[in-house]
């Protein structure tokens, strides 16, 4: 019995897998541990302390950046989700029609262009628009974020729509529901998990963005990631670890919720 042949096992694969998981989590773990470090420096352990979390939460720049991140993410994810839902309805479960492939490619383009390329292209255009209009508010950031959030919101909504039986809407029409009633009473309730997943995905993507934000933002418009990028280049204190840890906790929370929403659907 001890030498039973297992067709599934391959020598050494388990070891490499464990190494990979260690590699994935040890650096994050180190970052989190040092966030609770009582000492001024990153290298010396000064006992368990929350002082850097307190310091970060009382730092005006951090507060501003966090608030800005949320405002941008909520607007961008919200608008992107609405636009993506509409687009998904127009491009899913339909017989191929002229323009369908075009729309599909168009919507997914932001996924394919390297971020730095989009970033400098937006810098070129928006810097000129800022001069012309004199407006340099958050609108640029929200617009740029919305654009790259759309394909992410589109993905789960489309997947959900695709798995929906098209005869349900046909049944609604057969039972005297007008197209709008069929959408409100049948399509939308069934689509809800996909829409929620799409919004959350878009929200996380917007919240995480560094590159495009760095190039599009006007002076004094740091979001949390660009603020951290600036801090990392300067002398590092565990305050950055504290911010990163809080950020991390939020991301994990959102991903977990997303994961379970998606699982329930399947």
């Amino acid at each position: 019995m001890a030498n039973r042949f297992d067709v599934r096992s391959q020598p050494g694969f388990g070891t490499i897998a464990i190494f990979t998981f260690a590699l994935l989590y040890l650096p994050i773990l180190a970052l989190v541990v040092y966030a609770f470090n009582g000492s001024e420096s990153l290298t010396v352990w000064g006992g368990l302390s929350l002082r850097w979390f307190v310091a970060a939460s009382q730092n005006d720049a951090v507060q501003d950046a966090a608030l800005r991140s949320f405002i941008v993410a909520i607007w961008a994810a919200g608008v992107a989700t609405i636009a993506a839902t509409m687009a998904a309805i127009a491009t899913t479960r339909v017989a191929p029609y002229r323009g369908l492939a075009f729309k599909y490619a168009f919507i997914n383009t932001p996924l394919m262009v390297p971020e730095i390329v989009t970033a400098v292209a937006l810098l070129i255009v928006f810097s000129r628009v800022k001069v012309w209009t004199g407006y340099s508010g958050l609108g640029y950031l929200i617009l740029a974020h919305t654009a790259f959030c759309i394909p992410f919101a589109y993905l789960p909504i489309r997947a959900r729509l695709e798995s929906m039986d098209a005869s349900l809407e046909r049944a609604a029409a057969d039972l005297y529901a007008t197209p709008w009633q069929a959408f409100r009473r049948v399509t939308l309730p069934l689509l809800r998990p996909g829409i929620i997943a799409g919004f959350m995905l878009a929200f996380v993507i917007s919240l995480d963005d560094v590159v495009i934000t760095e190039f599009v933002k006007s002076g004094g418009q740091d979001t949390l990631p660009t603020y951290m990028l600036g801090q990392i280049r300067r002398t590092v204190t565990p305050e950055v670890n504290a911010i990163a840890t809080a950020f991390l906790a939020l991301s994990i929370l959102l991903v977990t919720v997303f994961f379970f929403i998606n699982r329930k659907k399947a």
Partner: protein
Amino acid sequence: MPEPAVPQGKRVAIEARGIVKEFGQGAGSLRALDNVSVAIRENEFFTLLGPSGCGKTTLLRMIAGFEFPTEGAILLNGEDIAGLPPFKRPINTVFQSYALFPHLTVWENVAFGLQMLGRPKAEIASRVAAMLKLVRMEELAQRRTDQISGGQGQRVALARALAPSPKVLLLDEPLSALDYKLRKEMQIELKRMQHETGITFVFVTHDQEEALTMSDRIAVMSKGRVLQIGAPTDIYDKPADRFVADFIGESNFLPATLLSLSSGVARVKLASGAEIPATVAEGLVPRESVTIVVRPEHARAVREGGQVSGRVENVVYFGTDTHIHVALAGGGTFIVRQQNSRNGVAGFQVGDAAGIEIAADAAQVLRD
């Protein structure tokens, strides 16, 4: 043989007139329906029968309003409704997949149509209760539709489609997902419900047995055309067309020469030299060389005599009856079906010489 259950002269409920449906355009287009006309009468159980791809479902979807005809008209009580969207047609469908709304309960599913029509709450409640009673689903009214079985789903789909009292009920292969026993039960249930509600049923199936058991009339379709419309007995006993004869039941085809023709009965001469009478379908003008069809149970294998003869090639035992395959002297095989009795099977062995006696008026002249 009983006459069709629908008396002649009943009013036409729904009619498809000269329907052509083409998918795609230009050279690559596909003609799914080719000049199809059917008139379905009030209170009739009408079946569209044919193999998959024959256009029966397309025709049904057109009546429901999910497809538009390329040419032709759909008349409901004499009015063309081809341009109306499905939600403006007093016609409901039982979908093949049932299409029950998974986010609604059984009760809410059945109430859906009435709610969309804006009926008062009290009326909806009583109507839904009546429908659930009709399909014997009162107990599961508050269940979600993903918590009921396939047979129960079928009943809910029926109740939902019947609740708004449609003029015509369309059923798109509604029994195909059920297992054999449940299917037999539902066939009887469906007939009962049609009888109780008095609604015109248009039923689509590829199962000839189902069609023969349930229908008042059947339209046999193939490759986008209607080949024959008639009562089950007409279709079975007097197939007008080689496809119909082949698709429904088993058939023997024999080449023959037309000798004379008077009042729907022809005299034909078989290859063996025997002369027999054969029925000619209404409106058919046969040519000189024709094909006649004989059902296996309308002939008998005999030791001597018979209109054609040959040698027994195979004897296949089926329990209730036995099929005797006879290789004919002039080529081809003739299959005879004989009822088994306590005294054993017909007693033929492979290799025996056998004659075949064709019953009087069993033969039918086919359209080419």
